[in-house]
């Protein structure tokens, strides 16, 4: 009897931990997830954007925008995580960030990501990668690493079912002047 109660207590403990643990979802095992490592040393608080939106909040935004912007709502429905780091680098940090982008490039190439864009010229280093399902019917991850001539760096990871056409259209649509001001 004591043994039975002991087993039941252990089961209950793990069940409670797993249910409560759902609050903080772990995306690291998701095929579309990419860990950019520690970018904090490059980011100063004056000129940076850090976004980390998880699935539950994305769904809430999706529900909220369903009426006004059905395309955005539909795109967000399939997403699990949106992670963005955007900041400006200067001096020796420019070379280090460019090295970091090359490191990420190696890492993603080893993990069977497809690089769809690579631009590397003087002071500029931009790559775009996608991760597809094994049957290659759906895109489940997107990574953008970008360093521009003016020192503007961006690291983006979108996890979940991604409609690239909608992403491109919405990307153009939301590139409004007020947002430009935020980054410049």
């Amino acid at each position, binding site marked *: 009897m004591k043994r039975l109660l002991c087993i039941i207590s252990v089961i209950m403990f793990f069940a409670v931990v797993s249910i409560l643990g759902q609050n903080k979802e772990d995306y690291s095992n998701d095929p579309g997830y990419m860990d950019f490592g520690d970018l904090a040393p490059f980011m100063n608080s004056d000129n940076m954007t850090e976004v980390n939106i998880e699935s539950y909040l994305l769904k809430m935004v999706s529900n909220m925008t369903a009426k006004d912007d059905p395309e955005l709502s539909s795109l967000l429905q399939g997403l699990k995580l949106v992670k963005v780091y955007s900041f400006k680098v200067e001096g020796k940090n420019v070379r280090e960030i460019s090295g970091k982008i090359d490191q990420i490039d190696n890492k993603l190439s080893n993990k069977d990501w497809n690089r769809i864009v690579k631009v590397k010229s003087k002071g500029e280093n931009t790559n775009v990668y996608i991760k597809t399902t094994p049957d290659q019917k759906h895109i489940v991850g*997107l990574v953008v690493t970008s360093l521009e001539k003016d020192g503007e760096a961006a690291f983006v990871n*979108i996890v979940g079912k991604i409609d690239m056409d909608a992403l*491109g259209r919405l990307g153009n649509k939301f590139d409004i002047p007020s947002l430009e001001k935020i980054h410049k």
Partner: protein
Amino acid sequence: MKRSNIIDEKLLNSIISTAYGDANIVERLKVYFYYIKDPRIKELFNEYKQTAGAVHSYKKLDCPDKILQLTYAKIYGEEIRRRNKARFIRFASARPVIVTTASLIIIALVGLFMLNRQHEENQYSKADVLKAETQVKQSLAIVGRVFRKTENKLTEDVLEKHVTPPIKKSYDTINNLLNGG
């Protein structure tokens, strides 16, 4: 039926089996001897033979599995449900501790799950969702800007500066050759 009562049960079975063609050789011989000897057996055998002929004349139909399953469920469904219920009651009365504990665990888990959902729903205010919407749009804008810059680079820089001039030069060379220049 009356006639069959005065005939030995075993013999009747043999007659039926023989009439339907299912009997073995010994049974068939036995029936054959009775058939010759006893006119009642002969008559009975002929009756069964006739019935067997009629039965065998029916065409065999393949019944779809779905209909078979439905029929089975209709005939035995209630019985199975009754048996399962009885089995569960027997199990529950034999092991009340296990059943009570399992029920409590299920209730506790469902309760926790619902509480957790409620907590998640209350976790974000409207302002949080609005902020998230802006951040999503910012993120999409960053991606859009990278895409657009790449497109511009391809059309303005790569195609215009590095692809178009050699093609144009080739055309000029061909034109010169054709014109005898």
